């Protein structure tokens, strides 16, 4: 029983690995295409659009990619640890301006969130009112 369970887990891990390899290959292809065409867009952005369109058109099935994609997104943090360790090389900069940088990050983030949340709420209310008006319009005409 246990070995059957382990075999199926192994098989699933294999699927995930193959799907990650496919995503890796597609990214490499998009990077090469962007370089070749001299585009100023990152290859990964072209990749997102390409894969989305392939899924939408049905050329690629969701089940072909979703295990690998979900894994990469779930473990996203891992892949940018090496880059962030690079802050070692800028230790002098952080020692000098660390507090100021934190102030920019905290105030800036609060501003971004306030603006985004408020605008979305406003648009949502306006659209809800319009939808309600459209539904109750006959009554209002009668009332007036």
């Amino acid at each position, binding site marked *: 029983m246990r070995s059957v369970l382990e075999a199926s887990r192994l098989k699933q891990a294999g699927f995930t690995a193959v799907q990650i390899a496919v995503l890796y290959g597609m990214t*490499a292809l998009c990077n090469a295409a962007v370089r070749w065409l001299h585009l100023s867009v990152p*290859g990964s952005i072209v990749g*997102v659009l390409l894969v989305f369109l392939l899924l939408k058109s049905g050329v690629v099935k969701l089940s072909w990619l*979703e295990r690998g994609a979900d894994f990469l997104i779930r473990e996203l943090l*891992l*892949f940018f640890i090496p880059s962030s360790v690079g802050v*070692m090389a800028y230790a002098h900069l952080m020692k000098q301006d660390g507090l*100021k940088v934190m102030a920019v990050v905290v105030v800036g983030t609060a501003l971004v969130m306030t603006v985004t*949340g*408020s605008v979305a709420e406003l648009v949502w209310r306006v659209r809800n009112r319009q939808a309600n008006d459209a539904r109750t319009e006959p009554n209002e005409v009668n009332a007036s």
Partner: protein
Amino acid sequence: MRVLGILLTLACYAACKWLYRRVHVVWLNPMITSLVAIVALLRIAHISYAAYDMSARWLTAFLGPATVAFAVPLYRHFPVLKAHWPEFLLSLTFGSATGITGSVLLARLLRLNHIVVTSVAPRSVTTPIAMDISQAIGGIPTLTAVFVILTGITGVIVGPWLLRLLRLQSPVARGALFGMGSHGIGTARAFEYGAMEGTCSSLAMIVAAFITLALAPPLVNALG
């Protein structure tokens, strides 16, 4: 050193994730603890960043595919985006513009170094894309990666408080607030409010990346 960098990173990441699951404190986010642990270990062992990165860059190579992987949630939740596209488009355009101009103006007000200004500007979007934008506008991608994490953690702390203060009723607005303000780290928090909030947050995060990519170069140029 060839595989040591990878092994060190994997081991620290696994240990820090385990710790975070046991002790659920925002400041113990595995990103922060792994970073601190690795930097400390490299310092103690007198290993330079260049030597570590020779090996660890094999992990960085997966950032591109991980970005492309976002096509899957985009496809899965496309109906939600379609139903609420005016909310997403307007709020994320204003949010993204606020993020870039706000960072640049604040950083200048505090007389920060120009390279820090351009590195801090794209920090509201998910890391791989923030690093690409940073490169495009003359920042240091590595520094941007650190700012992105700090932003994510700040958002998780400030977000719930702002949500109450602004009295946001709509799950779209709540989700957009987290997705735009603190990307993936915020999205995890948004799911604690509800499935719709979390879905909107992940959609906001993906769309915000596209909008910021389009807005950052011209805005930073204009603010020059």
